[in-house]
């Protein structure tokens, strides 16, 4: 008898790795992704340390491998709505939102986006630029297929336009598409729905939302990326002037019982160091300061990377949490007020750009998915493992596994290793449950 397929929920690097491990060993996989493309947060990052590999460049081959793998079926714009049964025999209902573009016909040529008259804030670029109401999520999207954003499309809102349908050379536009329900029967389920960054607007003293030149780290990743809104030039969002004095603030919303989340987000010290090095690589004359509480250098090669940032690149590390960020109304510069906890003195530092390294928080959709799967969430909304020592990847529901950031912040190699571990568990279930 043919082995039953495995369901992987979430198409970021963890979900992709789990799907590939299982498919490579000969099991069929359904990879369910909520957004129009797989790739997840890693696809939005510029470079990855310590090799400074371009993030999408090392991820894209894996994304495409998924799409070309005979054992993997990708369901984009899809969410798991119902799960019944048990390990070895889960019945799953997946709801696929309409794309209004026929995936089998669209070639991703981009003509429709070019002609579409409606401009919308581009969420994938963290709102730093605009896209059209019909769009391909990003150039390396998988599948490379356009999607109509019906909330902004003139045809859906006002019944006019339809220019995309007239210009599409493939005849792929289909305004009549309806939500579709897909039924699957799978032996096990791997949850890999990832994480998101905190919106730091509520931390009034840092001015995010009031000052355009105060950005989050994920926004910074887009700003510094060659495929980002500025083509990789580090320009101040407020006036487009080149930013060469940059401050990073660590633990924004994190490690605080009063004003946010008590936990450490695990990855910020190192990505801030990487981002600082990126700035220096682009412009060695830049002044880069990282304000931190404890420098988390607990991984392989981390301390060496920080040493290099300090000694070779001249990145300045200051131990202290800034109290306030103000804007000089005349120059438009930002002024960071901080106490250096080593010297005990209060200083101010004038910069062009402030990057807030905000808490990584659980996705709010976890709640609904946890209900559907019968899983528990921790008090911060992350999926709960069966046991942090013995069953890190397992959950209280046999046959349902968690990997990557959906059960807490972690870095890429940890997510990838956990994904392979999830695949091992799923392969074991498959063997146990196949007569």
């Amino acid at each position: 008898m043919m082995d039953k397929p495995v369901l992987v929920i979430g198409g970021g690097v963890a979900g992709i790795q789990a799907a590939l491990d299982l498919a490579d060993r000969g099991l069929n996989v359904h990879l369910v992704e909520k957004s129009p493309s797989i790739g997840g947060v890693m696809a939005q990052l510029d470079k990855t340390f310590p090799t400074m590999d371009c993030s999408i460049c090392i991820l894209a081959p894996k994304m495409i491998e998924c799409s070309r793998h005979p054992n993997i079926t990708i369901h984009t714009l899809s969410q798991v709505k119902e799960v019944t049964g048990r390990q070895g025999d889960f019945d799953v209902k997946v709801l696929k939102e309409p794309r209004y573009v026929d995936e089998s016909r669209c070639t991703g040529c981009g003509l429709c986006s070019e002609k579409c008259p409606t401009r919308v804030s581009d969420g994938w670029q963290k709102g730093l630029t605009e896209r059209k109401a019909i769009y391909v999520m990003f150039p390396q999207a998988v599948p490379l297929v356009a999607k109509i954003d019906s909330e902004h499309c003139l045809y859906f809102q006002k019944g006019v336009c339809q220019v995309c349908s007239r210009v599409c050379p493939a005849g792929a536009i289909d305004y009549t598409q309806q939500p579709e329900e897909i039924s699957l029967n799978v032996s096990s389920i791997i949850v890999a729905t990832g994480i998101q960054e905190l919106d730091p607007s509520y931390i009034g003293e840092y001015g995010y939302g009031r000052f355009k030149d105060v950005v989050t780290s994920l926004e910074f990743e887009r700003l510094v990326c060659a495929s980002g809104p500025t083509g990789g030039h580090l320009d101040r969002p407020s006036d487009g002037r080149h930013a060469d004095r940059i401050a990073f603030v660590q633990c924004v919303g994190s490690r605080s019982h009063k004003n946010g989340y008590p936990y450490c987000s695990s990855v910020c010290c190192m990505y801030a160091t990487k981002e600082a090095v990126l700035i220096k690589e682009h412009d060695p004359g830049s002044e880069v300061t990282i304000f931190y509480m404890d420098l988390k250098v607990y991984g392989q090669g981390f301390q060496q990377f920080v040493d290099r940032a300090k000694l070779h690149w001249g990145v300045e590390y200051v131990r202290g949490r800034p109290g306030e960020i103000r804007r000089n109304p005349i120059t438009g510069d930002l002024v960071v007020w901080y106490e250096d906890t080593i010297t005990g003195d209060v200083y101010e530092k004038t910069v062009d750009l402030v990057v807030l390294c905000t808490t990584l928080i659980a996705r709010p959709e976890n709640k609904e998915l946890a209900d559907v799967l019968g899983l528990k969430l921790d008090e911060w909304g992350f999926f709960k493992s069966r046991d942090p020592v013995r069953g890190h990847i397992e959950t209280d529901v046999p046959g349902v596994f968690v990997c990557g950031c959906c059960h807490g912040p972690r870095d890429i190699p940890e997510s990838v290793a956990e994904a392979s571990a999830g695949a091992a568990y799923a392969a074991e279930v498959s063997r146990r449950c196949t007569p």
Partner: protein
Amino acid sequence: MTEEIRIGVFVCHCGVNIGGYVDVPSVVEYAERLPDVAYAEPNLYTCSSDGLQKIQEAIEKHGLNRVVVASCTPRTHEPLFQSACEEAGLNRYLFEMANIRDQCSWVHMREPEKATQKAKDLVRMAVAKARLLVPEEEPEIDVLPKGLVIGGGVSGLTAALSLMDQGFKVHLVEREGRLGGTLLKLDKLFPSNVKASEVIDPLVERVEESNDVTVHLDSKVSDVKGFIGNFDVVVDTPGGPEKLNVGTIIVATGAGYLSPEGLYGYGRVEGVVTQLELEQTFKEVGGLEGVETLVMIQCVGSRNEERAYCSRVCCTEAMKNAIRLLEKDPRRDVYILYRDLQTYGIEFSAMEFDAKKRGARLVMYDKDRPPEVTGEEKGPLVRVYSPLLDEELTIEADMVVLAAPIVPNVDNEALSRHLKVPLNSDGFFMEAHVKLRPVDFATDGVYVCGTAHSPKEVGESVYQAKAAASRAGIPMARGSLKAAAITSVVDEDRCCGCGTCIEMCPYNAITKNERGLAQVEPAVCKGCGVCGASCPEGAITMRHFTDEQLEAQGLAAIGEA
């Protein structure tokens, strides 16, 4: 029969990565005029599904029999383009790549004109080689459904059991006379405070009861030959050398702890112990009697010039033991002297707060002004300068506990030589790719997990072991795989049998045949080319990198296309 050569050239913009600096249309135009080029086109992203489809369409439409992609690096993208060619009916070795991004547009961003000229040169070189490409076959090799796990600690046991549960037979080799590894020495494990014995004992029991796992105690791997699917391993056992034949190998040999002789009075001052020794005391007698004031010192002999890396687990270990001591007797004074707290993530952060809430006193110290420990009559005396308070604290302690670093095993080096896998500069085993292949080695069929790779806590070692078992299980579940076609070929008429290549080969892929001439085992050969370069007779050439092809490429570089 000579077939007409028809080359297609695809030049990638890579968004602005290439297109922003190199004049892609002019490179395409240039390529069109090169000899034997039948077709050329630009792509926004050649690696996108759309770009790959265009390659396939062009192969059919223009009757292409060689494909050149000028884009990024073959390291990440060559397999993708090769597969696209293969799907369109072209042998994957009729593909050649020109790296006009990493080696051109990225390094010449400020000189767009020269970058464009260099891109043309690189394309011309790739075309010159492509004209001489020939199809190559990848031999199929069988994979034995049997794994070898080296190391019988929590990682090795977990990996062995997972392979067993996936349906494979396993050999488990353990250096000591007993399974269990480091966990045998620990009392309780963070963050859940589960007894180490409750974690390790069930694993040991399952392995010992299993008919599918063969355990070799007091044993060491002394020789490894062969390749993925078919390794011949010699294990030195108490009963003499034993030969094993396995398909894959998982390295789970763990790590050790540094004995911090001479640091902070260790070995000299009464009452100075390591966290591991404190743990052993807990395990043996259940608690600490008569210790009112206890000082833990973090980063002992690590994060310094001699040993740069952080041992990852010590801060949380300190929190765990501080909580335990204060739980038992809240009136105790427990100090933790630290540099940067490494209590990452949700659960370890929570332990940090718990320890603080229970009254643990955290004192940050500066690397350049570390604490001092002296032996006094009443016990160890600790002096530490706190930059936060700008004063020196003097603590009369009953006990000082040092966070000694996790260090690589001394036998890593020998094992790395047997397996032909690398160690990093710290002496731990080094994975194939730090981000995307965390448990693979660059050598196919060999995997790594647990603290053999780098310091990590037990939960992390367990899931890494599972990950290694998944990776090792893939080729074994398939039963066969395709070996690389890029291997060396010996011209027996020219080989003089001197054996230089055998000495030089880093993979032990070459042996002497019955006539005393060099013979290459294609499944072992990685195509590195060392033998070809060192052969005094010029008798060795590489498939897909023949002298003729490289000469043509080189001549094209200096304009003699």
